[in-house]
């Protein structure tokens, strides 16, 4: 009987030698995207796959993951398990997820499909094919899971339409558009390395652990099911960086520049996650700052120590992001408190217990800078003067977030940071040195940014009044605003058999 081959041999036989040399077209024409970024590949056969996962094993394990996930989703729906949530307000985190993150999964699917076609090395083609299929699976399983919540709560009815139009969703969308409109090597450095390897733990791990903490087992299951693919993707990110830098010395400065740029782009997108973690989860297992310390400071510190022998260093402005970790969620939440009437989810002032948790987790900043503002807003609400910002904010030309971040790294955390660049006689505004560097490096690209506020003023977003614009977003009037007094709150209370404030009043009157 023939002896079973070992993993390495089996893997080589099943994944190598699948390509061929084209004969009736020049290779550069067949793989036309491979050279224009200036990246030099001398030998694709040096590509090392992170996991030795062959196609047959891949399909077997992915099928098993899906089977398990759909079993959980079925029983979740059968048992009306949404009633076990810690609180109805928790669902707002899911709304932000389906509007902001799931469409990115779909974009990643498309991006990796392009890479699988455009890379000429078979090892990289197969890895990108698998990832393309994974990302489509993530988008689908997220839509399936969250569709159960869509039966009971607002704001989840048209996430892909919203993603292409809404002011706060242009933040994640523009980051992915930026990566997708770049060449294939920049795309993979951006998505696989800067986002997935360096930062994705900050999105999925605390968020899914938070879902578990708040009784949302369906989301835990899709999240961890997606994340099990993610460990493969992250490792792909690391391998591609090592491979590119080893291929040619000219690649190093290009790759470092992309790491600097996309670290900052992806970090700005995660500002939304910081708010979900610290303010939107009724029960938070871990603060943004704690997650940043573990998954960025400690983990990426060790990663870049490993990469130092390839000549790579930590991304530029990483120390700014670390200094901002004690401010980020409070500032992002503050922006949404101003504009929640124009969003398709609800937030509200933190409870006293939440405020105390924030004081404990943010001893240097919360009581000093952010608690007084929240207390003032609470007092205004009590007087019937809930503050909504009815103007439209100035947006950063690069990250597209309203200009609300402050000069934390310059020890002036009460001063909003403004940067300005000139290009072709026009002024362009950015929110930070990180975004300004990105703009200044490729102004031709960012002058084309589709900025939601500018588009509204130009009359391209359904009309001049807020209701016209919200209608153009496919928002329903009851989708936004404060959670307190919202349609979702009333529905949650009715489902839980609790009297809503209106009912108890009428009872009292009777």
């Amino acid at each position: 009987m023939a002896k079973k081959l070992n993993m390495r041999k089996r893997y080589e036989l099943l994944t190598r030698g699948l390509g061929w040399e084209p004969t009736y077209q020049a290779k550069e024409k067949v793989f036309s995207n491979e050279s224009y970024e200036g990246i030099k590949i001398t030998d694709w056969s040096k590509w090392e796959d992170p996991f030795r996962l062959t196609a047959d094993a891949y399909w077997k394990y992915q099928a098993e993951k899906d089977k398990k996930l759909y079993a959980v989703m079925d029983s979740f729906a059968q048992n009306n398990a949404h009633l076990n949530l810690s609180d109805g307000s928790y669902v707002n985190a899911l709304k932000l997820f389906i509007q902001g993150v799931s469409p990115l999964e779909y974009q990643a699917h498309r991006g990796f499909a392009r890479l699988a076609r455009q890379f000429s090395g078979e090892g990289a083609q197969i890895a990108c094919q698998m990832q393309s299929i994974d990302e489509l699976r993530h988008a689908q399983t997220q839509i399936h899971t969250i569709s159960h919540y869509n039966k009971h709560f607002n704001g989840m009815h048209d996430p892909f339409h919203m993603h292409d139009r809404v002011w706060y969703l242009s933040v994640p969308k523009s980051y992915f558009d930026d990566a997708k409109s770049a060449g294939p090597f920049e795309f993979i450095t951006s998505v696989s390395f800067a986002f997935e390897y360096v930062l994705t733990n900050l999105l999925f791990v605390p968020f899914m652990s938070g879902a578990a903490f708040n009784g949302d087992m369906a989301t835990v299951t899709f999240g961890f099911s997606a994340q099990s693919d993610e460990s493969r993707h992250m490792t792909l990110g690391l391998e591609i960086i090592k491979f590119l830098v080893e291929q040619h010395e000219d690649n190093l400065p290009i790759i470092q520049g992309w790491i600097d740029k996309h670290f900052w782009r992806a970090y700005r997108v995660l500002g939304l996650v910081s708010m979900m973690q610290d303010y939107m989860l009724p029960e938070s297992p871990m603060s943004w700052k704690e997650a940043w310390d573990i998954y960025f400071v400690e983990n990426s510190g060790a990663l870049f120590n490993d990469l130092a022998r390839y000549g790579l260093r930590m991304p530029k402005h990483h120390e700014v992001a670390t200094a901002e970790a004690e401010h980020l969620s409070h500032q992002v939440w503050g922006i949404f408190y101003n504009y929640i009437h124009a969003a398709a989810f609800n937030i509200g002032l933190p409870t006293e217990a939440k405020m105390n948790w924030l004081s404990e987790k943010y001893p240097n900043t919360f009581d000093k800078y952010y608690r007084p503002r929240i207390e003032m807003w609470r007092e205004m609400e009590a007087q019937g003067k809930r503050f909504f910002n009815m103007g439209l904010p100035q947006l950063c030309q690069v990250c597209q977030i309203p200009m609300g971040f402050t000069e934390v790294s310059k020890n002036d955390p009460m001063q909003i940071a403004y940067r300005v660049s000139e290009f072709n006689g026009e002024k362009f505004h950015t929110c930070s040195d990180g975004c300004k560097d990105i703009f200044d490096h490729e102004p031709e690209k960012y002058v084309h940014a589709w900025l939601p506020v500018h588009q509204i003023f130009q009359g391209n977003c359904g009309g001049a009044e807020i209701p016209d614009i919200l209608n153009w977003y496919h928002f329903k009037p009851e989708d936004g605003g404060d959670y307190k007094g919202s349609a979702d709150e009333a529905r949650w209370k009715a489902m839980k058999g609790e009297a809503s404030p209106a009912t108890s009043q009428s009872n009292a009157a009777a």
Partner: protein
Amino acid sequence: MSEGKVFLIFQDTAEARPFINALEQENPKASFDYQPGMVRIEAMGELGMTREVVCEQAGRDVDLQELHLTLISLSGNIEEDDDYFRVVRH
């Protein structure tokens, strides 16, 4: 090998138990941090398991690649073959 940290994160489920137990047995210096739904296993420099111990823990024949079903995240460089799986810092 440098002294940088490596970690593996698994779902906290019965299915992942043989892998978690094997890591516990084979990496006496590793720390185990249980959070809702997951466990994060951390060590300096290296963290690994062998198939023999995983099979013993599971009470059946296990293909180490089954860890793809319950692995949530990792940090470090992967070294794997039929008989072992580990993450290391270089």
